[in-house]
């Protein structure tokens, strides 16, 4: 039972380079989320999706784009990486509804931007 899978696990970029982080879930969840985690801070929501073909901005969306072309995949893109985007990125998914909105997380992608 894979759950939520993120690739890659680690990446080092130079300032200005672009990359895409992939999140895949096999639980048929409608909602998917991208968070970033920085030292001394809680996870912060970057973008989210409430269903296939839909995306929306979270609390810290600047410098990121997302796409949800298939229900099971949620991609996070950095068009021009900056050192401030050095962080650990987590993807999560959930079933909507107050009784079941437990978010399940992937193992994270550690990104360093030099």
């Amino acid at each position, binding site marked *: 039972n894979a759950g939520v899978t993120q690739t890659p696990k680690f990446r080092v970029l130079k300032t200005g380079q672009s990359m895409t982080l992939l999140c895949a879930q096999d639980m048929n969840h409608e909602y998917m989320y991208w968070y970033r985690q920085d030292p001394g801070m809680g996870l912060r929501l970057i973008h989210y999706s409430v269903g296939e073909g839909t995306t929306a901005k979270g609390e810290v969306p600047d410098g990121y784009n997302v796409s949800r072309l298939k229900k099971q995949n949620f991609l996070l893109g950095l068009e021009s990486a900056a050192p401030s985007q050095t962080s650990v990125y987590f993807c999560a998914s959930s079933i909507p509804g107050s009784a079941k*909105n437990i978010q399940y997380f992937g193992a994270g992608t550690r990104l360093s931007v030099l």
Partner: protein
Amino acid sequence: EDKVVQSPLSLVVHEGDTVTLNCSYEVTNFRSLLWYKQEKKAPTFLFMLTSSGIEKKSGRLSSILDKKELFSILNITATQTGDSAVYLCAVEAPEYGNKLVFGAGTILRVKS
């Protein structure tokens, strides 16, 4: 602005000790409070609390919510070295697709 504050930021205990982790929150339109355990990688779900005063329990871990005073505690009894982790508290808010607002976490280290 929605806010979740956890305390202490870190603590070190010996195996067998009992610990209490605290989580206070200020969230508009509260729906639920969740506890996660984060070891090296993914946060893993522990508890979801929606009703005040009802204790959730799983083995040596238990948690309770006080919606009047806006806080929750997570208790761990007879701690083991495998309990060493970061414990995250999060509150569900209806904005942003039912986003979770996270606290910074409590780092727990259990020494043998």
